[in-house]
């Protein structure tokens, strides 16, 4: 546990006896936001690993045409579980639950979140939901095979264990709502003296926007999933065409939540990038207010575009045109962010340490994701690529290339604060290149496959599609290797890395002013803020 270079150890901070010590019970019943954040970290990464293994299995099956490893029925369950686990258990809670919990109070100079016990409860609710989700694989009529979207009427008719999986998603949504309530109240009520809304770090702004989406949108999918269960148990007929119901209404209700949920996933990622860029270009952020407001704008416009998932369902032409138009509006606040980030880099004193490398990769990969999104958002082209691998490629570029990579950036950026020790840069860079190259090998061929006409969710394919599939599968092995190296490096750095000190990167936000790791109540003395979050120089806080 000692530092090889100096033999010194970092302060124990909230890991120490004052924070509850090291026993398991002191962790799972801790109301300290930092400990809750780490509980989420370990839980989420475990499910990420399971989801990744499911994904690798699918890629292996798709190496050649015909059946290799699993039957078509099992394949259907594989992509359903990969989707359910990655979306509901990993990427929706994702950055807010891990980094938001840990960093939000630190960044606004507070002792904790507004409702610490509710915060712990949200983790427990999450674990119950996760337990039920995993149980649904092995009980009842077998693992769900509907895809993560649970589209009616198939989700009503299939004998697989949809009811339990849907209940799990409902409970996970509840956890998400509790976190949202907590964050909004914290941001409104707990900011340090002198920190007006426009002195909040941009990560906090992104969490604020995200929390509003969680609170307003999640209940809609909650009640929809309840209706699916009632439909299966009682046959009320809301989504059953035989009883006069409308299956497309299910899709409306589902996407009223699930499209804004995309912004639940991506906004905090954008917040992370907005923290890292000014730190590693040694400049203040360019266009602070524009970036902050664009987060709110994305959250707002995000409610207006859900229909673009449904262009081919047979909904009215009017609504298809309206939703397509609205979809293009999202590009405006997103573009504002990208341009401001690039302007922040301009004439900055850029240093390419691992967090910055991941941030750069985010901008590159997310831009591909965003541009392919426009192809899906335009009515005419969407008809061609709908339900093909193009869509699969697109949302992996956005979700994994965006949110996933941003989470990795955040882990490298804040590991010194969380553990008190530095990341091994050499190993981090090696892993980084494997991840990014593997990523593009894995997902770029999917865009090509989609244009060629390969449908998604198929167990088998025609021989003409084989070359891109082989490249993609090889890419899955490269990125898997990179991820293993990256997590191993993070783990060993947290235990044996060089001492970090309070502010190893020269960051300007409040979390860098306290010790690494922070003490249980975060700051030794009350914090007063006298300047914006990215202003450099003396006298920022009193």
């Amino acid at each position, binding site marked *: 546990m000692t530092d090889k270079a100096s033999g010194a150890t970092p302060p124990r901070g909230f890991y120490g006896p004052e924070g509850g010590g090291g026993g398991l019970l002191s962790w799972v019943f801790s109301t300290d936001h930092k400990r809750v954040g780490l509980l989420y970290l370990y839980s989420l990464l475990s499910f990420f690993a399971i989801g990744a293994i499911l994904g690798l299995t699918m890629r292996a099956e798709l190496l050649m045409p015909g059946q290799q490893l699993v039957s078509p029925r099992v394949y259907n369950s594989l992509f359903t579980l990969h989707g359910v686990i990655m979306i509901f258990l990993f990427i929706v809670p994702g950055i807010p639950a891990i980094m938001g919990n840990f960093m939000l109070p630190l960044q606004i100079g*507070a002792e904790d979140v507004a409702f610490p016990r509710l915060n712990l409860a949200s983790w427990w609710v999450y674990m119950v939901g996760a337990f039920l989700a995993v149980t649904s694989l092995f009980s009842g009529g077998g693992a769900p095979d509907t895809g993560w979207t649970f589209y009616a009427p198939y989700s009503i008719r299939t004998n697989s264990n949809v009811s339990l999986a849907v209940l799990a998603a409902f409970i996970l949504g509840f956890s998400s709502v509790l976190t949202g309530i907590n964050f909004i109240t914290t941001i409104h009520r707990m900011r340090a003296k002198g920190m007006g809304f426009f002195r909040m770090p941009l990560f906090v702004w992104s969490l604020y926007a995200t929390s509003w989406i969680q609170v*307003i949108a999640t209940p809609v999918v909650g009640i929809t999933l309840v209706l699916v269960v009632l439909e299966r148990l009682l046959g009320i007929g809301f989504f059953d065409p035989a009883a006069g119901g409308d299956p497309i209404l299910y899709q409306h209700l589902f996407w009223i939540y699930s499209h804004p949920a995309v912004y639940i996933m991506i906004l905090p990622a954008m917040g992370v990038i907005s923290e890292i860029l000014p730190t590693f270009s040694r400049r203040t952020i360019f266009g602070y207010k524009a970036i902050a407001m664009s987060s709110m704008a994305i959250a707002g416009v995000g*409610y207006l575009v859900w*229909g673009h998932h449904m262009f081919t369902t047979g*909904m*009215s032409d*009017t*609504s298809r045109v309206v*939703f397509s138009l609205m979809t293009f509006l999202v590009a405006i606040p997103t573009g504002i962010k990208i341009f401001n980030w690039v302007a922040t880099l301009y004439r900055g004193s850029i240093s390419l340490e691992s967090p910055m490398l991941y941030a750069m990769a985010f901008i590159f990969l997310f831009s591909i994701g965003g541009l392919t999104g426009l192809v899906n958002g335009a009515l005419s082209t969407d008809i061609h690529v709908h339900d093909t691998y193009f869509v699969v490629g697109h949302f992996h570029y956005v979700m994994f290339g965006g949110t996933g990579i941003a989470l990795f950036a955040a882990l490298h950026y804040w590991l010194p604060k969380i553990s008190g020790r530095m990341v091994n840069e050499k190993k981090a860079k090696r892993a980084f290149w494997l991840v990014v190259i593997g990523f593009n090998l894995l997902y770029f061929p999917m865009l090509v496959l989609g244009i060629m006409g390969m449908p998604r969710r198929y167990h088998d394919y025609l021989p003409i599609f084989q070359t891109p599939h082989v490249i993609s599968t090889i890419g899955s092995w490269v990125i898997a290797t990179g991820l293993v190296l990256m997590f191993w490096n993070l783990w060993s750095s947290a235990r044996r890395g060089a001492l970090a000190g309070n502010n190893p990167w020269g960051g300007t936000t409040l979390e860098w002013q306290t010790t690494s790791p922070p003490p249980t109540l975060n700051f030794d003395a009350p914090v007063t803020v006298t300047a914006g979050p990215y202003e450099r120089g003396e006298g920022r806080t009193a």
Partner: protein
Amino acid sequence: MHDNTHAHGDGRTAEHAPQPYGLFIKVWAALMLLTCITVGASVNWPGAVGTAVAMAVTPVKASLVLLFFMHLKWEPPVFKIMFLTAVGLMAVFFGLSFFDYLYR
């Protein structure tokens, strides 16, 4: 550390003096009366008129409950803004859904 009053520019906080009992009893009487009007209209003029009265009166009843029983009238502006945001987004969900159902 948490001197939070600075959060509100106009200095209004959620703490307010209790209102007289009589005010709430008046609001309750109004709610009962409005219910009778709605039901009366629906029974006597079923169809368009009854529906129109219900559509006009029900939001008034809801507003009375929100403003007085739920104290929204005396809360700082941030509460009202939040509430209108939530209701506004719900209206957006309805509106955009009906672009499908009305033009199908």
